[in-house]
């Protein structure tokens, strides 16, 4: 059975049908890429999955349970984490705290323990910190060292993206939703990120839904690609199949093949 499933989900804003009757399924351990022209509804799909928007119709099933109507934080607790296309960091908190804060749902120290600093609290706190440092270390040198205690606002754009990914990882998700993780990175850095995503699946066993406009990334790691346009699925299959689909080329890739970065 699929780890995650969208069944005939629709969403509209005013007169604009943004997602219509979309169904898709993701298996445990799969990396599925969502592609499609700007405004196709990709981000909206993520918002529906994470409960930020309520679907007009359809069912969203995760781990065998319907999650529509649940609170956002409950969905996260169930094991779905995401990054935001328009970064949403806790800018005035330090980098390490940005990550540590996301452990909230996975920790349990209560008021009593916190105020009295019981051994249980210390253990948990040290554990959170160690894990957070480990998540940040995923990105090599970029987010470590003196930067741990720097406020997040002092990061450059792409590093903020990396921090978002680290923060999402801290919620210990089963399903990770990445919204354009490679935006703002040069080809070399994009390669880094691509490898990293692969590592997340291989080492942490995550299932990943990826939105990306960089065909290098999509082609590099996707098990499956789903193309959307106007909120509808227009193609689905392996990267090669989708990338050569005339509908996709017409709507998304453009005629000039060499424009697709390798």
């Amino acid at each position: 059975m699929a780890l995650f499933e969208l069944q005939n989900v629709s969403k509209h804003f005013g007169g604009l049908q943004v997602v219509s009757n979309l169904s898709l399924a993701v298996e445990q351990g799969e990396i599925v890429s969502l592609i499609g022209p700007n405004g196709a509804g990709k981000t909206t799909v993520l918002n529906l999955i994470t409960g930020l928007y309520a679907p007009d119709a359809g069912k969203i099933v995760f781990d065998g349970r319907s999650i529509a109507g649940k609170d956002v934080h409950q969905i996260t607790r169930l094991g779905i984490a995401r990054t935001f296309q328009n970064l949403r960091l806790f800018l005035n908190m330090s980098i390490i705290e940005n990550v540590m804060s996301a452990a909230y749902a996975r920790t349990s120290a209560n008021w009593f323990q916190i105020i009295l600093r019981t051994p249980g609290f210390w253990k948990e706190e040290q554990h959170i910190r160690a894990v957070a440092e480990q998540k940040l270390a995923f990105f090599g040198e970029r987010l470590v060292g003196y930067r741990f205690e720097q406020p997040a606002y002092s990061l450059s754009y792409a590093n903020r993206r990396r921090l978002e990914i680290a923060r999402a990882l801290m919620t210990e998700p089963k399903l990770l939703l990445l919204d354009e993780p490679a935006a703002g990175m040069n080809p070399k850095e994009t390669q880094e990120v691509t490898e990293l995503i692969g590592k997340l699946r291989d080492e942490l066993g995550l299932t990943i839904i990826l939105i990306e406009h960089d065909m290098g990334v999509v082609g590099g790691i996707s098990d499956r690609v789903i193309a959307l346009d106007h909120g509808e699925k227009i193609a689905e299959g392996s990267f090669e199949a989708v990338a050569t689909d005339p509908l996709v080329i017409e709507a998304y890739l453009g005629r000039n093949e060499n424009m697709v970065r390798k």
Partner: protein
Amino acid sequence: MSNNGTKTTLLRLEDINTYYGPIHILQGVSLEVFAGELVCLLGGNASGKSTTLKTILGIVKPASGRVVFNGEAIQNQPTGYRVERGMAVVPENRRIFGSMSVLENLEMGAFLRHDRDGIKADFERILGLFPRLKERLHQLGGTLSGGEQQMLAMGRALMSRPKLLLMDEPSMGLAPKLVEQNFELIQQVNQQGTTVFMVEQNANMALSIAHRGYVVQTGRIVLADEAKNLLDNEQLRKAYLGR
């Protein structure tokens, strides 16, 4: 392409040092953009590209050094003044006016212009270039998708008919088909006489349309050359172009 004869300098940074709080970010950055040129600024993440643009625009003030625009030292002038002198920007993070409609956002781009007809013509032209914006004309800027916002930021900057167009990753978040179009558009704008200085991570394409390029690394300019030489630069290719 104006590689021949007399070139007038439109923008010059002279030994710029910029700090964020106590941290020294730009260390003696000097660069020059000639009128009519298309110059791109490359660099890894956190190398100081956006900071350079912000310094040019006056969003951060350099601790020392001069920013000369059109012969005038402007490093102590506020942003608004520089824009009045003819700069326009596609900022990092887009900075769309979220609670204004697409239409109003575009009008804001033409804030300093008074030629109604010219504005109208440019407006039509931009909607022609980005048909998606035309479809979303009365939608609030903040509710656009990421890529749509990027188009809007582009359109908004073009609405001011600048002398110097500054762009921080103008193709970020755009679909491949549009990336291609976007670069064509930039080239076209440049050919029509607008000087362009852009930060772009899609280095291959950026260098393919640019005249010259600078490479910034940890707050210093480490390379400056003709675009085609940069494309062939072994070091650069390894470091950035991933080939």
